[in-house]
């Protein structure tokens, strides 16, 4: 093994990068030692992905320094990063499904014969060698990639990455789509390539994996690196604590005491979604006037629950009862008819018709009440939009302005207005303040609390824990399409929520000295 302490293979010092006003990287420092497996962990949005994008030449950094083998490193394109020896295996695959395994592996540098034609023999030979090198002897290099399972595709990506002379291999959430057996296989391969001197950077939300195969771990929080520790010196609860940060503990106790009744507004029983048919199903209750939060990591199945309740995606099995009566929801209009509204995660793709006026967006759901015999009553529509705007303190120029002319916070208010126009009794909200500035966030919180006081029940999915602890009366924590736990206001702590979200609740009581 190369010398460890003296010269790091790659060192990052005080790296900074911002998008608009948001500091995605706000002082990131860490070092990679040759031949180690180094984990990067942190909450969603802590800066891991941005760092990877900087290292792989997708984004340029603004300040700080990266040194590789002692020299300055500033990749200007993904190609430059590859030439320098940094390869990334992304969570979304970059494979060409209809081409063969061999073609995919060689796509960056296809071998040519002396006549300039594709040298299939050489290509297949190289692919075979690349696959054998990671122990994939059972894959036929001439098979189309589409015919292989997800796990194999992932491994082929790794084979491709290793085929060029990479010295650093970055695996971004490699196990997100793998089963346990496949994950075990992947880990064998990672140990194998580590033994060959390749340095592996491992990004994962699964702490047990980090503790299973990594040598060191660097923890990110709010765009900063908090610490780098040897895995042998820490426990998973320690790492969770680093991720949360003590400063962030419980700041939201000022919210009004839960005013909701015991009456159940919506009951979900044994809900299974197409996204995860194998799970046991999800059951929970939403009380009248309650704001119920759903916490969890990206991919935990939170959005899927909302979409299934709303009929946006088909429900595999399970029941939804409103006020004790079962609902038949096959499509969104059934849910709307039952008095359910759904503020989607992505207002640009699913919530708003950006080029259309504010008024037209406000009436999109409840256009029936501002029209007669199929003709739009424009005066009534303007009245509806004016009223909705006033209720939500919407700031706008004219109702005929396109909704794209509004700020993020005001766009979100238009989405809310659209759903409130029909006086729903239940609102589902997915990341209600994403891309909204701090002031507008506070405003949206107070609007939502006001709605709850009027008796509207809400389910709020959010990746921001301070948002959930500030806004909600109870929090469901999900991981792997299952409910891991339900916390009442009195039990709120970021640490507790994260431990549940990371599936660490069993270890949480064991603390090291």
């Amino acid at each position: 093994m190369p010398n460890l302490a003296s010269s790091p293979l790659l060192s990052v010092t005080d790296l900074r990068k911002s998008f608009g006003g948001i500091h995605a990287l706000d002082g990131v420092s860490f070092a990679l030692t040759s031949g180690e497996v180094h984990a990067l962990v942190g909450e969603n949005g802590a800066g891991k992905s941005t760092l990877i994008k900087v290292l792989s030449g997708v984004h340029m950094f603004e300040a700080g320094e990266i040194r590789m083998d002692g020299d300055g490193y500033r990749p200007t394109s993904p190609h430059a990063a590859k030439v320098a020896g940094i390869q990334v295996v992304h969570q979304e695959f970059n494979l060409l499904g209809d081409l063969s395994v061999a073609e995919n592996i060689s796509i960056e540098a296809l071998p040519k014969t002396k006549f300039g034609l594709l040298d299939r023999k050489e290509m297949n030979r190289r692919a075979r060698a690349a696959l054998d090198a990671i122990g994939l002897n059972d894959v036929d290099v001439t098979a189309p990639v589409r015919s292989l399972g997800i796990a194999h595709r992932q491994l082929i990506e790794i084979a491709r990455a290793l085929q060029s002379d990479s010295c650093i291999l970055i695996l971004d959430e490699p196990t997100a789509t793998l089963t346990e057996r496949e994950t075990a296989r992947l880990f064998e391969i990672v140990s194998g390539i580590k033994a060959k001197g390749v340095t592996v950077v491992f990004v994962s939300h699964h702490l047990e994996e980090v503790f299973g195969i990594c040598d060191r771990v660097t923890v990110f929080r709010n765009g900063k690196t908090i610490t780098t520790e040897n895995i042998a010196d820490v426990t998973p609860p320690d790492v969770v604590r680093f991720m949360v940060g003590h400063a962030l503990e419980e700041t939201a106790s000022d919210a009004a005491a839960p005013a909701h009744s015991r009456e159940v507004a919506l009951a979900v029983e044994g809900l299974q979604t197409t996204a995860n048919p194998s799970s046991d199903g999800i059951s929970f209750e939403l009380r009248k006037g309650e704001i119920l939060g759903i916490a969890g990591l990206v991919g935990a199945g939170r959005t899927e629950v909302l979409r299934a309740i709303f009929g946006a995606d088909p429900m595999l099995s399970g029941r939804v009862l409103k006020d004790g009566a079962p609902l038949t929801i096959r499509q969104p209009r059934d849910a709307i008819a039952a008095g359910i509204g759904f503020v989607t995660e992505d207002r640009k793709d699913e919530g708003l018709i950006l080029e259309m006026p504010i008024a037209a967006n406000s009436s999109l759901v409840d256009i029936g009440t501002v029209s007669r015999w199929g003709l739009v009553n424009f005066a009534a529509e303007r009245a509806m939009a004016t009223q909705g705007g006033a209720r939500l303190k919407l700031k706008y120029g004219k109702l005929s302005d396109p909704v794209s002319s509004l700020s993020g916070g005001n766009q979100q208010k238009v989405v809310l207005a659209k759903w409130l126009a029909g006086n729903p009794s239940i609102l589902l909200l997915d990341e209600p303040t994403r891309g909204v500035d701090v002031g507008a966030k506070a405003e949206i919180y107070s609007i939502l609390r006001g709605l709850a006081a009027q008796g509207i029940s809400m389910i709020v999915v959010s990746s921001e824990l301070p948002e959930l602890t500030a806004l909600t009366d109870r929090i469901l924590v999900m991981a792997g399409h299952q409910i891991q736990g339900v916390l009442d206001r009195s039990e709120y702590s970021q640490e507790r929520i994260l431990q549940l979200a990371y599936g660490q609740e069993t270890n949480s009581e064991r603390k090291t000295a």
Partner: protein
Amino acid sequence: MSIAEEVSFTPRRKPVSIRSIVNNAGIGLALLVMIAFFSVASEHFLSANNITNILTQITINLILAVGMTFVILIGGIDLSVGSVMAFAAVVAGKAITLPGLGPTELIILAVLAGVVAGTICGVLNGVVSAYWSLPSFIITLGMLNIARGAALQISGAQTIYSFPFAFEEFGSLLVYGVPVVFIVALALVVIAWFVLNRTVFGRLIYGIGNNEEAVRLAGHPVFWYKVAAFSICGFTAGIAAIIYMARLNIASPIAGIGFELNAIAAVIIGGTSLSGGRGSVIGTLLGAFIIGVLANGLILIGLSDFMRQMITGVVIVVAVILDHYRAKYSAS
């Protein structure tokens, strides 16, 4: 351009103004420039006779383009309208030459038969492409062949002729020099404008073209709206078939070859975005005029039909490039 300068005086309304001006007035301006040029270049261009000519020539394309506007607004395309028109014409031609009926009955029967035949093709286009979420490009390409084959099969590849006198007369009837068939086309434009701008249906047609998922999640039956858009396109192809028969006094199974491309060109030149959600039927009217005036004027100033084709092609490409910048303007 002077339009842009004008707009900059009212900065607050800028995005809206630029868009509406470029969308509508811009095309109208281009049309006016074209008319001015041809009236100077050719003394015959503005003669009453020639104007009647132009109006007659653009009628069929305008009718097809009105229906096409609906389909393109939802982000689709209908390549079958030319063939569907021929199919509807043959069906109507068979109906109008049935023995043993009076001319009035025959005409009513033929109009109904033609319009129903066209509409059925449109419904099929819509149902198949919307139900299986397939690209309408492919589905209507299939219909292009199906309808053409059906037209040839039904007619035995023979042109149908000898229609009632009143029907043939209607095709060349003028009111103050304006062809009645053009007035029919204009009426369709007015109806389409009303539907698109004043009804819930029209609102949601634009909505689907912009953001189909948002419309679906708002609880609207997107599937039926899409089917309706294609059905309207088939309906107008049926109307076009009747007009075509009245004008030429024949129903030919090989009529309308390539007409779909002219109709699409009129819609696109008229400023409707090929990706849907943006545009207007007034633009389509102007687009059809631009193609018609260009065709007529270029021949009048002595260019060959080949040159005319080339120049029309250039205009289409320029229109799409302008559309690109239009999209950029409205995005910022």
